[in-house]
């Protein structure tokens, strides 16, 4: 019930922001800044790139907020934009080998304190952009299969099968590392 109230309140904030209310938009930014940043950092592995992606996402949200027909869809809509922005940044970073090396270094440095499973991190880096998105939405944002399917605009069954396949790939990759 509390969740339902929070959900309605959140929809109200989106509606008020659509009507041009500055305070409501500020509340929305406060609510979503941390989840957005956490997702972008886990996706890109770099704080600077994560901040850039989040900032660009907000700019798109500001520009297209009025085209959002249903306020309940804000979460999936915003995460879709963020995922696209992160993928763009990731492509840009990966294009230049030098930058990529620096990025991997930075990633290792930043996460060194939290590193509990080196093999899993390594396996995560080998995932494709699509697989990484799935894993992050599920385990970083704790989204349900339904929410992921809405965010990525694919059927629930496809989400389940892709997630299952990705987890299997991660498992095999870790096992391979352990044998080496």
């Amino acid at each position: 019930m509390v969740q339902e109230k929070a959900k309605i309140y959140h929809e109200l904030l989106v509606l008020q922001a659509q009507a041009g209310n500055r305070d409501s938009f500020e509340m929305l930014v406060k609510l979503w800044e941390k989840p957005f940043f956490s997702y972008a950092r886990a996706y890109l592995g770099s704080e600077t790139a994560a901040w850039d992606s989040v900032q660009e996402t907000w700019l798109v949200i500001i520009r297209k907020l009025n085209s959002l027909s249903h306020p309940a869809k804000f979460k999936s809509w915003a995460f879709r934009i963020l995922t696209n922005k992160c993928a763009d940044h990731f492509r840009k970073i990966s294009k230049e080998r030098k930058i990529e090396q620096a990025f991997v270094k930075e990633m290792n440095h930043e996460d060194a304190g939290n590193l509990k499973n080196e093999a899993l991190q390594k396996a995560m880096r080998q995932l494709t952009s699509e697989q990484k998105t799935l894993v992050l939405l599920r385990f970083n944002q704790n989204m349900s299969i339904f929410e992921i399917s809405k965010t990525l605009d694919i059927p629930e069954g496809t989400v389940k099968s892709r997630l299952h396949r990705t987890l299997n790939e991660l498992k095999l990759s870790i096992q391979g590392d352990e044998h080496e």
Partner: protein
Amino acid sequence: MNNDIESKLNELLKMKDDLDELKSERKQQETVDDFEKKQKTLKIWYYVWLVVCVIICCAGLAGMEHNSDPYKWNGLFMALVGFNSTIMIKIWYFIKETKLSILQEMKQLQIQVAKLRLKNGSHD
């Protein structure tokens, strides 16, 4: 085994509380400023469009006073276009505002209902 990997992923990827508060606040402020700027620009465009429509309408009305017939017809056409555009833009603004305010009222009502349910301890 998948459960094992899921718990490892949960641990590895869970949201961390190490957000740089100062930087975050600055970024939030930037975002809100951008939003305000966009709203201002939208309002300015609305008024510019309105003024342009009124000018067209007035020019058309003035043209209708002219001696020659073609001028009069052109003036009438311009006056109609200007007048209709003014009305259209006002209706668009009114519909947009009304739609949003009705939806907002509905959400407020839903929040009140949820609050009451919570107070009464209803679980349905």
